[in-house]
């Protein structure tokens, strides 16, 4: 049977372009107000998976993403770059999930796709920088984890070998059986879109997206099953609702404060020679430098 690799990818608000209306009053993120992108390290994860596929030959890469309907964009993006299929987990009941509830929902989707050989996630998502979802999915699947992967080395028999990046060096690990791997930004960048794949997959749609599509479009999709992006709700996953969303999330936001800088007694200087000379002199005489 072909080797099955599941890639966890998240659509994230581009935190490099954050405005003032980014947070809602209940403490959750107002995603609608921000440009949405493919989480950068999830692209490294996709590349990692594609390299495993290149090596294996007979393998399948499936992207799983949980988010609002528009998150289907990153599944298509993944398909343009080499993924074979996608699953969108979407339901209003997921809203407000913290990492524990998110990992619960994702682990159910992974189980629904079982048997699988490998789950690959990014190390962390830039909207929260928590790096928690990967290890928590692994725990819920009861499989081992290899975090901070930098390179897929290869197979040794059935075992996979991975190089991981630590604060002060590297480790090479070998894993038996299904394993979850989180990929570090120092790993290889993702290959770019492939023009043929863009042509092939640009019409891939989820159920929700199809509801707005024209008749002939739906007909076309029926003839090309690879264009159907699976869409799973709480019911499809048979999930316990009390473990999802705000009620399934142990962490609550108690309050959010804008940072009020207490104005320091500060001195403004120009870049003129005399200003800088004076500053350096005063730093030397007060023994801060020199």
């Amino acid at each position, binding site marked *: 049977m072909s080797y099955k690799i599941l890639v966890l990818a998240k659509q994230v608000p581009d935190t490099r372009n954050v*405005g003032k209306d*980014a*947070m809602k009053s209940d403490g959750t993120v107002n995603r609608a107000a921000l440009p949405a992108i493919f989480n950068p390290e999830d692209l490294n994860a996709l590349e990692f998976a594609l390299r495993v596929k290149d090596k294996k030959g007979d393998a399948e890469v499936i992207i799983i993403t949980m988010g609002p309907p528009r998150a289907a964009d990153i599944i298509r993006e993944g398909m343009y770059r080499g993924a074979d299929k996608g699953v969108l987990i979407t339901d209003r009941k997921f809203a407000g999930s*913290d*990492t*524990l509830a998110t*990992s619960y929902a994702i682990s159910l989707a992974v189980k629904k796709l079982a048997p699988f050989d490998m789950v690959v996630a990014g190390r962390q998502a830039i909207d*929260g*920088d*928590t790096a*928690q979802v990967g*290890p*928590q999915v*692994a*725990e*819920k699947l009861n499989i*081992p*984890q*290899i*975090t*901070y992967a930098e390179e897929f080395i290869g197979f040794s028999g059935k075992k996979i070998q991975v190089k991981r990046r*630590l*604060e*002060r*060096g590297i*480790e*090479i*690990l*070998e*894993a038996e*059986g299904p*394993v979850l791997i989180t990929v570090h930004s120092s790993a290889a960048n993702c290959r770019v879109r492939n023009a043929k794949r863009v042509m092939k997959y640009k019409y891939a749609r989820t159920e929700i997206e199809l509801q707005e599509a024209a008749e002939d479009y739906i007909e076309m999709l029926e003839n090309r099953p690879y264009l159907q992006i699976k869409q799973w709700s709480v019911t499809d996953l048979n999930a316990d609702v009390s473990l999802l969303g705000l009620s399934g999330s*142990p*962490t*609550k*936001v*108690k309050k*959010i*404060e*804008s*940072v009020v*800088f*207490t*104005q*320091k007694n*500060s*001195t*403004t*200087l*120009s*870049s003129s020679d005399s200003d*800088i*000379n004076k*500053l*350096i*002199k005063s*730093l030397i005489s007060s023994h*801060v*430098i*020199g």
Partner: protein
Amino acid sequence: MSKNIFVYCEITEEGHVADVSLELCSRGYKLAKELGVELNAIAIGNNLNNVADEVSAFGVNNLYLTEDEKLFPYLNMPHSNIVSKILKEQKADIVLFGATSIGRDLAPRVASTLKCGLTADCTSLEIGDHYVKKTDTTYKNLLYQIRPAFGGNIVATIINPDMHPQMATVREGVMKLEPLRKKIKPEVIKLDVNKYVSKSDFAISIIDRQIEAQKINIKGAQIIIAGGYGVGSKKNFGLLNQLAELLGGEVGASRAAVDAGYAEHERQIGQTGVTVRPKLYIACGISGAVQHTAGMDQSAQVISINIDEEAPISNIADYNIIGTIESVIPKMIKYYRKNSK
């Protein structure tokens, strides 16, 4: 409910308790005093005879040790199973981990096992109450897990009212290392490794490791010249190097500068980098986003060099030099040479 506090003591390559763990013991000791409970530590590895002594100046009451050849170097499954079981048995209420490669690999797995919350990269931990209007209940003595959040100028206080333990990771240098004047010998509880791990926990094996000695150490530097995106190029970072060498300091960087490839990741200062407290911090072309200032706002003196008079960094700087890096730094070098002789 018990209010036991636990700190996971990470063991370094050299076999010592990591600084970040001792810093967390310092903070944990204060929290324990405030709550009137005991401070506990967990250490897992091989040959841990020195650990009791190393934590004795930090107020640890009980030290849980699990020693075995198989337990060093760190492996996720054995360590997370041991930690999870101890926390369950001891009914831990607050658990602190260093936000290191090990801590961030371990803590999420433990939190998932215990079905509790976990807040990454806290910059402050406090005790406080929480009132819920809807049910008219007050939760007493919760752990406030405080961290800068999402995008710009926001600091969030995270709590776990219902599901405990309450867990947090904290980066090295964020909490102060405060040894007590009077050492306390902790009570050592040695655990039998075979009761805590099984063979299947070793499904992953280490086939090679190359760990380098620490090269860049900006944490200990008294003077830091930090560059941001406004420095503009790797070449301009050379100016910062020159100034740092002259003043006997180290070069730091903002995340935007690291992302742009101007500086190594080890030099990143801020919420997801290192926290520093030098006597002089010169911020060059750094706007002063909270995620950055969280890592440097306790510097004794801050000088900012920026073309924008209103950049947020100007609110925390003692001196704001309005000008470009290219013009200001060479002048600083010139006048330092002239005046220091």
